[in-house]
């Protein structure tokens, strides 16, 4: 078994009102920033999965992302494998 470190990035779906994004935009004039627009604010979770393969680990992450970390009615998510983690950890803990 190996450990795989992932990030799950969740964002409001395009077209869904994003009050946090709007709040950030409304603060931009106070920073004298005029070149920024279309701000969307989401959330990011990082997690480690112990699994035989990266594909197996991704199935677990995908299920969590869909069921818990995002609400598919209003949000989208993207899964990111954080670099270097799986090979480094699998050397420390070789498969039985």
């Amino acid at each position, binding site marked *: 078994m190996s450990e795989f470190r992932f990030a799950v990035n969740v964002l409001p779906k395009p077209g869904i009102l994003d009050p946090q994004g709007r709040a950030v935009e409304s603060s931009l004039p106070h920073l004298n920033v005029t070149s920024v627009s279309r701000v969307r604010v989401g959330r990011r979770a990082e997690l480690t999965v112990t699994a035989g393969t990266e594909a197996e680990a991704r199935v677990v992450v995908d299920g969590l992302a869909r069921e*818990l970390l995002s609400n598919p009615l209003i949000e989208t998510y993207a899964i990111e494998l954080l670099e270097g983690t799986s090979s480094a950890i699998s050397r420390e803990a070789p498969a039985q």
Partner: protein
Amino acid sequence: MKVGVVTFPGSNSDVDALNALAVAGVDPVTLWHESPDLEGVSAVILPGGFAYGDYIRAGVIARFSPVLRGVKAFAASGGYVLGICNGFQVLAESGLVPGALLRNRSLRFACRVVAIGPERLDSPFTRAASGAPIHIPIAHGEGCYYADEATLDALEANGQVLFRYVRNDGSPAIDPDEAANPNGSLRAIAGVCNAAGNVAGLMPHPERMSEAILGTDEGMQLIRSLVESAADWEAAGRPATVAGPTAGRAAPATDRAPAAARGNA
């Protein structure tokens, strides 16, 4: 007759709901979030508050709690379930009622008395209502009702919209930015029910204005509706199907689909 109120870690309106039920003349029962056993109650209220701290999204962690397994089975067997405020958020996250509750359009936590109008008086959750606007409090940061246009059309066609925020003259506060619509809810929707008609959620708190000593007892119309419906359900021998809002109407709107059927961009 016993009616249950679930207590989650972070619930804060559970005791108010228990009190309102006692005023309505039934035995109120506290249901603990760690047990799926509903103790034979005839109806269930998911109360207001901040279940599990509202972490990730309001209601989503409660969705996976043991008591929700019992609540889902109870709802599937025809029992009446009412979610109030955070309880509505739990029902929406669980897919037991359609739609989602987004952060208030104003970005502010909204805490004041609002007026809601019952859309129909023949539903299990409004049968004891007078039909006049009901003045009860809201207290939420995420109450902006959202569903896509097709779902909203289907909810209206099926009679699943139970309450809307209304203006002083009783007309619905359709503009999401107008003062009478406290959170920007689409089509001014304050409460909906599932296609079967036995599970409903609303953002305002009927239990917090359920006795004259609390200011008014206008909210008691909704508590009484639930109690009467539960009593009829018991008297009929707990039928699995109730006379839902879709009876004799077009195809029901789909509630949040099971995980396997849900896509994700």
